[in-house]
C-alpha cells in the first residue's frame, strides 16, 4: 500500500471533520483512506499542467438581491427544530469562560 496514514493524520482530520472516532473506527478509517488514496493516485498519471481547475461546468455568478428590510419574524420557524431553545435563541453550551 503506497499511502500511509499516520495516527496523527487521522487525529488531525478528525478535528477538521469534527468527528470523534473510536479506536476501532480510527483503524478502519486509516485503512479506508489509504485504499481510497491509492486509487485516487491514479490521477497522477494525467498531465494536468496548464489546465484550469473547473469548479463549475457553466460560468455561474452569485445572485444578489436588493437589501430591503422587511418586517417578517421567522424566528418561530427557525427555532422549531432546535434541540434546545432559550429566550428565543438557539441554546448551546457555554462557549466563553
Amino acid at each position: 500500500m503506497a499511502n500511509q496514514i499516520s495516527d496523527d493524520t487521522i487525529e488531525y482530520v478528525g478535528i477538521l471533520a469534527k468527528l470523534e472516532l473510536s479506536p476501532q473506527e480510527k483503524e478502519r478509517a486509516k485503512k479506508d483512506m489509504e485504499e481510497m488514496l491509492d486509487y485516487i493516485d491514479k490521477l497522477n498519471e494525467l498531465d494536468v499542467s496548464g489546465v484550469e481547475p473547473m469548479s463549475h461546468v457553466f460560468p455561474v455568478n452569485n445572485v444578489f438581491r436588493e437589501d430591503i428590510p422587511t418586517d417578517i419574524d421567522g424566528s418561530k420557524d427557525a427555532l422549531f427544530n432546535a434541540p434546545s431553545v432559550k429566550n428565543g435563541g438557539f441554546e448551546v453550551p457555554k462557549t466563553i469562560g
Partner: protein
Amino acid sequence: MSLTSLTAKELGKKIKEKEISVKEAVNDTLDAIEKKEDKVNSFVTVADKDALLKKAEEVQKKIGEGTLGGPLAGVPIAVKDNMCIKGLLTTCSSKILEGFVPSYTAEAVKNLEDAGAIVIGKTNMDEFAMGSTTETSAYGATKNPWNLDHVPGGSSGGSCSGVAAEECVCALGSDTGGSIRQPSAFCGVTGIKPTYGTVSRYGLIAYGSSLDQIGPVAKDVTDCALILETISSYDRKDSTSMKREGLDFTSALKDDVKGMKIGIPRDYFGEGLDGEVSQAVKGAAKVLEEKGAVLEEFDLGLVEYAIPAYYVIACAEASSNLARFDGVKYGYRVKEYEGLHNMYKKSRSEGFGTEVKRRIMLGSFVLSSGYYDAYYLKALRTKALIKKEFDKAFSKYDMILGPAAPSTAPKLGSSLDDPMKMYLGDIYTVSVNLAGLPGISLPCGMDKKGLPIGLQLIGDCFQEKNIIQAAYAYECTREYRHSPLSDVYQVGGRR
C-alpha cells in the same frame, strides 16, 4: 387492478376525465403502500391520510373549477427524503436529522404541487445520498421488487423500488453520481438526470453541490418528460439555476431516430462489464440502428479517471456541506457532553453513519492544507479534461449510448464491506455529473436471474430532448414489464 399500475399520464387522464376522483387515486396509492411496504421498505415517511384527503379535495375542486388542468393534477407522487417539504418529516435517511420538519418546501416539489400533484410520502435512500444500494439508510435497507434478496440500487433506491413495486406511479429522485440512473436500471424503471442547473436545488439537502440534480423516476419516458417539464424552472434562490430554453421536454416524445448520430464508447464495453448487460445494451443499440439511427464506436478517453476525480470532488463538497449538522439548529444532539466542541463532535459522531463519516473524513483530508493542490485541485483539473472529452464526442454525435451500470442488482449485504468495489460500480454514471450532462436510464432487458438491465443515453448539455426522443423511440419497440409486486405481473413479464 390497482391504479398504481397505471402511468402518471394515464392516471392524470382518468382524473381529468372524471373517471376517477383524486381521492380514489390517493386512497389506492395508500392501500398499495400499506400492502407492499413490509416487503420493500421504499418509504421513510408516508404523509398523514387525513391531510392527504383534504389536499385531494382541494385539488379536485380546482380541477372542477378549471384552475388546474395539467396532466399531473391529482396524481400522487413520492419524493426522495432529501428534499424539504414544509410540515413533512425530512430525514435524508440519517439519524442526525431524526424528527426534522422543514419550514419550507423545495422548489422542485413546489412546482409539482402547483401543478396539482400530491406528495404521498418520502422515499428511502442511502444516508445523505451516499451509497449505491440504499443499504446505508438509518431506517433499514430497501429491497428490489424484482427479487427481495437484492438491492434496489441507490441512492434513490426507495423512489425506484416504489415505482417498480407500484406503490406509487412516479417519484422524484436526485442524482449526484448516478443515484437516479443506476437504481432505475436495477429496478426496471426509467429515470432522468437533467443538465446541471435545470431543476432548482433550493430545498434539496446538499451532498455534492456542483454535481447534485433532482430528476424524475417513472414507468416510462413519457412520464419522465412530463415530470421533468413540470419541475424545471429558473430559480433565483439557487445561484446555479440556469435561465435556459427548451424546457418543453414532452415535445420530444416522437418515435423517430432517423439520422440521429449515436456514439458508442468502446471504453464502456470493456473489462468489468457483465456479459448479459453488454449483450442487452448492444441489442438496444441495434434496435435504434434498425430504426434509422447512425451508430459509431469511438474512444471516449479518460473513462478510468472519472471515479477518482468524482470521489475527491463529491467528498470534498460533502465534508463542507455536512458541516451544518452540528446539533444546534436542528436534528440530533447528544445527551451528555463537555462544552461546545465536544457537543459538536459527539452529536456528529453518533448521528452520522459509517459511510457518511468515511466520506466526510476523506473530504476533509483532500481539502486540508498540504493536500488541497495534490488532490482537490487535481480532481478539478481532471474534471475540466473529462468535460473536454465529452465536448469532442458531442461535436460528432447527438448522444452517447452505453450501460447504466456494469452489472444487475447485487445481493443485499454484498456491497458495503468493500466500498472500493461499490464505488467502481459508478463507472458509467459519474462522468455525466462531472460534466453537467443530461442522462436517461431505461429498461432494455433482463438477465438470467430475472433482474432488469438498464440502457443509458447521455446527451450534450441542454440537449435532453435528443435523449428523450431516442429513448421514447426505443421504448416504442417494447412493452413495460411489471415487477412481481405489481397487481398485473405475469410470469414471463408482459402486460
